[in-house]
């Protein structure tokens, strides 16, 4: 195993998330194949890892309570560089981000798994880039997000 892959997340989705954000394309492809070949796929709850990771990094960038306009600006920036912005519709992304940051009354009903996963991963990636995190720091952050999700009672799918 590559030394930069030490202290990796333990779940399939966590490893995929780490690989994509850290820019480790080869490892990301391996994890994607493993996810696709699962005999017992994880539920949508798996994507909570991305949401927790996003919220954790967002609070590092914006130390005070963020304005909704700052969330919107980040989403606009992320969509502008996305090849498939239709996988991250603006209103859905805003609702998810605000919900992940703890706002109680935001309507996140009916948002698809693809949109949920894309939004969490892409926003987390933008923030990791802004924070100039190393691959190891990204891995550590994903591991923390995994633990938070596990404490919610969500079972993660492992290799």
């Amino acid at each position, binding site marked *: 195993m590559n030394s930069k892959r030490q202290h990796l997340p333990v779940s399939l989705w966590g490893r995929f998330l780490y690989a994509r954000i850290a820019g480790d394309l080869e490892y990301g492809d391996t994890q994607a194949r493993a996810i696709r070949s699962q005999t017992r796929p994880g539920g949508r709850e798996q994507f909570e890892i991305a949401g927790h990771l996003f919220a954790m990094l967002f609070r590092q960038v914006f130390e005070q309570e963020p304005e909704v306009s700052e969330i919107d600006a980040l989403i606009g920036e992320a969509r502008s560089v996305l090849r498939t912005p239709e996988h991250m519709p*603006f209103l859905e992304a805003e609702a998810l981000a*605000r919900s992940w940051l703890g706002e109680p*009354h*935001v309507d996140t009903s009916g948002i698809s798994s693809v949109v949920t996963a894309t939004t969490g991963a892409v926003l987390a990636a933008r923030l990791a880039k802004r924070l100039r995190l190393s691959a190891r720091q990204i891995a550590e952050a994903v591991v923390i997000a995994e633990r938070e999700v596990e404490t919610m009672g969500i079972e993660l799918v492992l290799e």
Partner: protein
Amino acid sequence: MNDGNGQSPLLGLWAAMRAGDVAATALPYCHLQGRLWSALLFRAAIRDEFREVSDPRHITQRVHKICAMVPEADRERLLARREADAIIRAEVNGELDLIQHVHDSSRSAFLTAQLITRDVFVAVVKSGHSTRLARRIVEAWQAFGDEDWFLKALNVVDPRPLMTDDVSSDVRALAGALPGPDGGEMT
């Protein structure tokens, strides 16, 4: 335009509000008179309800609270609360770029927004603030010419032609019926 009894819909609505007749105002005339009515009543009610609110979080909380008041039979029609929230933010804060993100689901979003508006009307009837809302309707009409984004959005929902002249005469009738600044029941 009149309601068949020689009275303009706006005057009828205002009379119902002043009489505290919730049933008569629970379904605003928007469904009967088309999208321009819908837009006019929506703008007046929303601008009044959210007159002291600008923070998107507070708008979301308020929308959530209003939706919780929607009668049980209509709950399943609340399909686009997220989009309705965005429409209201655009109206209250002028966040016009939000509207382009609403278009894909605009039909259900506007339905939700109308249900929210209806419940604002019910709250107005119960609070007895009908004159203030009537003034808001007149103000909203006066502002239409300068801010036509809402009408453009409505074009997506309903291709029927606007009935500008009819609505204009009804708003004039309402404006004429309103008491002077010192004669209203509210500030």
